[in-house]
């Protein structure tokens, strides 16, 4: 058996997800959107803040989903791009008085460049090796942020405090509510962009690479270009999420962006369903709320309780929220028939 054959017969690392299964139907999308718009009107500021974080982590998980679910590459280094985005926004806002909304596209572009560049050496690696290389990036980032050389801008270990923006045009809403809707608009825009990206020529190229690299290159796809492109897009979206996160939390510090964050995002992607974009929000909810639930059950053993809950989810629904959604759909179809 030749090496090439071996690669061909090997099962792909990421299960192939058909394009249509990557999104929600129109009806469901509208219901979800309606809920996301309406709930804050009746909720306390704290809940609104949590929902903002939900959207922000949702974006970061979505970015990873494009990379892994779309192009089949693993990354444990998303926290690094998240940190770059957060610091870019924070530094621009606090040191150079740039408007917060303008810092986000800048954060996105810088992270896109960083991701694209990192994608170059990462090209030679795949599967677990790539995961390890990105892991190195995540471990290095907090220490890089502490470097004395950058301290003028980053504030070193002390971090930077960020001012929260007020609602513009004298709109009668709290800072939290304004930031939530601001985040929501960006999230929807990026979601639509991502869905269209995956449906486009580039998206098809991503998926062809994911399903079989050799076949993809035989079809004339520039594998190297599209792999690095996927890295860049994913990093760019993560950077925007990071910038939003910095504004919502009002503080950036190296300790906020450790490897734990990268693992949380990875976890969120798996729980939400790899390759299923709407699952990103479910995954993000999992990484925000389940630790709180675990803590409520037992303070001393919160880590263990979290582990058990995670194990149950992976064991019962290995494909995450996507599987739950499919089961739900089938049940609904059955009920309709009767």
């Amino acid at each position: 058996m030749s090496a090439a054959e071996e690669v061909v017969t090997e099962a792909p690392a990421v299960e192939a997800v058909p394009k249509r299964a990557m999104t929600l139907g129109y009806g469901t999308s509208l219901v979800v959107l309606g809920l996301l718009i309406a709930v804050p009107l009746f909720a306390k500021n704290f809940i609104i803040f949590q929902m903002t974080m939900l959207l922000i982590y949702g974006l970061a998980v979505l970015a990873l989903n494009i990379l892994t679910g779309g192009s089949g590459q693993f990354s444990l280094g998303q926290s690094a791009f998240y940190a770059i985005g957060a610091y870019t926004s924070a530094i621009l806002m606090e040191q150079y008085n740039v408007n917060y909304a303008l810092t986000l596209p800048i954060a996105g572009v810088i992270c896109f460049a960083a991701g694209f560049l990192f994608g170059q050496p990462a090209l030679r690696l795949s599967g677990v090796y790539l995961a390890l290389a990105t892991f190195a990036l995540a471990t290095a980032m907090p220490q890089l942020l502490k470097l004395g050389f950058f301290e003028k801008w980053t504030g070193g270990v002390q971090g930077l405090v960020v001012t929260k923006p007020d609602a513009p045009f004298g709109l009668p809403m709290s800072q939290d509510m304004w930031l939530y809707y601001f985040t929501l608009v960006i999230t929807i825009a990026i979601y639509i962009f991502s869905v269209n990206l995956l449906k486009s020529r580039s998206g098809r190229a991503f998926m062809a690479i994911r399903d079989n690299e050799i076949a993809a290159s035989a079809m004339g796809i520039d594998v190297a270009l599209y792999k690095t492109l996927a890295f860049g897009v994913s990093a760019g979206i993560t950077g925007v999420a990071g910038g939003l996160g910095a504004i919502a939390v009002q503080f950036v510090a190296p300790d906020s962006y450790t490897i734990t964050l990268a693992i949380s995002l990875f976890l969120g992607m798996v729980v939400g369903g790899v390759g299923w974009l709407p699952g990103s929000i479910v995954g993000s909810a999992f990484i925000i709320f389940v630790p709180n639930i675990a803590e409520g059950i037992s303070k001393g053993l919160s880590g263990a309780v979290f582990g058990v809950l995670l194990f149950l989810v992976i064991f019962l629904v290995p494909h995450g929220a996507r599987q739950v959604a499919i089961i739900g759909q089938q049940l609904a179809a059955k009920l309709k028939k009767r």
Partner: protein
Amino acid sequence: MMLSKKIRIAALATAVMAFTSGGALAQKKYDTGASDTEIRIGNIMPYSGPASAYGVIGKTEEAYFNKINAEGGINGRKIKFITYDDSYSPPKAVEQVRKLVESDEVLVVFNPLGTPSNTAIQKYLNAKKIPQLFVATGATKWNDPKDFPWTMGWQPSYQSEAHIYAKYLLKEKPEGKVAVLFQNDDFGKDYLKGLREGLGAKSSMIIAEESYETSEPSIDGHIVKLKASGADVFISVTTPKFAAQAIKKLAEIDWHPLHIVSNVSASVGGVIKPAGFENAQGILSAAYAKDGADPQWDHDPGMKAFFAFLAQYYPDGNKLDASVVYGYGAAQTLVQVLKQCGDDLTRENVMKQAASLKDFEPDTLLPGIKINTRPADFAPIEQLRMMRFKGEKWDLFGDIINGDLSN
């Protein structure tokens, strides 16, 4: 007759007015989080994550408030202590503190731990005018009543501790050549700054500095380098694990400078014993609290109360763990503040009382060290005493030194 009746009515009216106005004077005043029966106190702690060893502080405080409640509460009100895990992560800290304030509606946020976490929540709490009381970090920036009137520290700041060592060196070893090993974070840097300030014009005494990361498995390389600098004073601004490594390594490479260990790592049980008593003879440090492992306090009334508390309310608590002693002292200080508040449990009054503590001595502080605060001075503990390790325990020596940053 008419007249006398009128007079009587007038008298009655005055009496009623006097009563009601008297009632108004003694009226109970509450902010969100306090009532006739309950005072809600919020807290965040790293129960999980890299700093989870400090989680016992929260557990000790919870146990202490249970004791206060069992003994009838404060002025008849029970304390409800709500504590959440922030895993030492600033974004999580913000989320949990907002939950405490907006969902649990606590009166004050008490003793939240960690410089990054506290920095993350400081602006929010000050904007909402909610006391961020007795934060569990030694950074110097918490004593800033002008810009942050709702934030107050508790323990001596790292800088004031460093000042004390600087004073000692200037007096005892003015020609010394100082080598500093410090942890590359806010703790290490704050400390180094204090040391330089304390030495003032003679800060050139510091001839070598080495920083290490907490992720480094061993700091041996740094120590060898510092020895090569020819220094005869070694200041170890380290956390327990690394302090113990340093003590051991110094003995191994046969380097015997004047060795000063930061108070954070002065624990006999956690540092000196693992490093070996024979290696630690003559090491200097400073303390403000009593060490639960030290037999000289076995008959001290304050420590007796502390041991009795552990036995009854927190049997899992390790008396050798400095964090347990810490949590007890901090909780006791809060109880004192709430007692002083009387029936005026507004957030403003809590801060006012916290800023007017007079010679308060928690059970676990060294004799003579007192908590004093003023509206312009938000640093409750500013005194420490130098100590030298001898045999199997610390010997306190010299007077209580004030590390007050203003002098």
